């Protein structure tokens, strides 16, 4: 047994634990979304979340990983640990989409989109930066994926939402905006806390090695910054909402925490905890503004995914130019544009193809009675929702 063996083992273990935490984010998205949709669409959103994860794992295994990294030359840890760490990232990107299109998107169309997204759209884009392609060469810096994962997911979601239109009853004839409260706030809070925990793996693992004083310190700093940005984001969202409406809107606070997490993801190691908290504060404010802005624009996103992952992803990438010595605003903007245009336009095309062939939107009748009955056969809380005779 040598020091190299030990380092290899430790790095492998560190990466596997990180990846397992990111896998756990699948549960976070599932619970968050299950909490924020109405109960009549809850079972269906759970089905989507489980299956998108399954599809992402299989498609990335069969196609995506090679597209993104070729046959990477991994020496510091077990190659399979690297694969596992990468595969859970693509699942995260796809999870972002499911929330935004919730309560009205056909299950099968969604799953087919997941196949294309995780096999091609995401990996090709990822190869340009993390795969060592032209974005990496241009100096675009996105440490753990504010852009490559979160913005990418949000761009695909935005394309889907634009083609789908809002949920029935969300916007009135005269431009009124109606609230459609989700069914289960504890689940939404649980989901957010799961995501918060998983994010330590997401950002912490992205250092890719923990051995060596630099690496150890960097990973520790990442944990602290990740946590601090989330805390600041939650607090900022709370204060803003409290000042405007004199109410403490739980879901905005949850979105604030996630906004902080997304924003710090672009560069979680370069800044001090104080800077991280400032970045988080900004994200918490921004996400509230973005959610309300999108609502005003009649872009209906039941869980706020586009605001959290898209708007705050961009914000985080731009902040990198201030915290990272080698990043410039220009290269960051360039990277943002490339990722957004690629993912958005390709997604739009795929969603559109799905719409003209098999349809992407459930029927009005099913939207009214709920996707659970239409697609799944059982409601989320069968005893509480409808009576039945046995």
């Amino acid at each position: 047994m040598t020091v190299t063996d030990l380092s290899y083992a430790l790095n492998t273990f560190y990466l596997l634990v990180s990846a397992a935490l990111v896998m756990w984010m699948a549960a976070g998205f599932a619970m968050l979304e299950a909490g924020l949709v109405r109960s009549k669409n809850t079972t269906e959103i759970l089905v989507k979340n489980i299956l998108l994860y399954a599809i992402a794992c299989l498609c990335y295994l069969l196609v995506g990983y090679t597209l993104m990294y070729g046959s990477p030359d991994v020496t510091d840890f077990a190659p399979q640990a690297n694969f596992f760490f990468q595969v859970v990232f693509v699942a995260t990107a796809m999870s972002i989409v499911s929330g935004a299109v919730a309560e009205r998107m056909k299950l099968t169309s969604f799953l087919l989109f997941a196949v294309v997204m995780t096999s091609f759209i995401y990996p090709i884009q990822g190869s340009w930066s993390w795969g060592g392609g032209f974005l990496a060469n241009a100096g675009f810096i996105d440490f753990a994926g504010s852009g490559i994962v979160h913005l990418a997911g949000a761009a695909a979601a935005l394309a889907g939402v634009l083609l789908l239109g809002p949920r029935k009853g969300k916007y009135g004839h005269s431009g009124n905006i109606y609230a459609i409260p989700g069914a289960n706030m504890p689940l939404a809070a649980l989901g957010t806390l799961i995501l918060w925990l998983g994010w330590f793996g997401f950002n912490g693992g992205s250092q890719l090695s923990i051995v060596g004083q630099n690496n150890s310190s960097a990973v520790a700093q990442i944990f602290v910054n990740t946590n601090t940005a989330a805390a600041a984001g939650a607090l900022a969202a709370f204060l803003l909402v409290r000042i405007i409406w004199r109410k403490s809107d739980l879901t905005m606070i949850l979105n604030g925490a996630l906004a902080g997490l997304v924003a710090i993801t672009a560069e979680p190691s370069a800044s001090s905890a104080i800077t991280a908290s400032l970045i988080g504060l900004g994200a918490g404010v921004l996400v509230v503004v973005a959610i309300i802005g999108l609502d005003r624009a009649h872009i209906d996103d039941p869980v706020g995914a586009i605001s959290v992952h898209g708007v705050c992803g961009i914000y985080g990438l731009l902040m990198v130019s201030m915290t990272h010595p080698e990043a410039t605003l220009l290269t960051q903007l360039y990277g943002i544009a490339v990722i957004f245009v690629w993912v958005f336009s390709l997604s739009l095309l795929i969603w559109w193809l799905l719409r003209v062939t098999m349809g992407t939107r459930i029927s009005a009748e099913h939207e009214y009675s709920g996707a659970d009955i239409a697609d799944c056969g059982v409601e989320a809380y069968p005893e509480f929702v409808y009576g039945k005779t046995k």
Partner: protein
Amino acid sequence: MQLVIAIIKPAKLSDVREALAELGCQGMTITEVRGFGRQKGHTELYRGAEYRIDFLPKLRIDLAVTDEQLENVVETIRDAAFTGNTGDGKIFVCPLTHVIRIRTGETDRSAI
């Protein structure tokens, strides 16, 4: 005085309430009920076993009215709750011998 009992589709509640408000009805009581009728339910599936949901969600409105209001109210509900599809529901009217407002003790017509 009469008690109007209307069984309607849940989605029609807002329309009915607004139409009644225009008539000047200031109070009503709503109950979540389940209806069985000509409208067919649907089949569900759970772990390979299928089962029917025959009782569909409906709302019941209880509304006390004066004899003069009755015709107008019934017609208003009918129009506002109408979709033309099976399951639109029914309106029942039964006579009330007393009405009391608890807060004021007012009775009958003035209590409605």
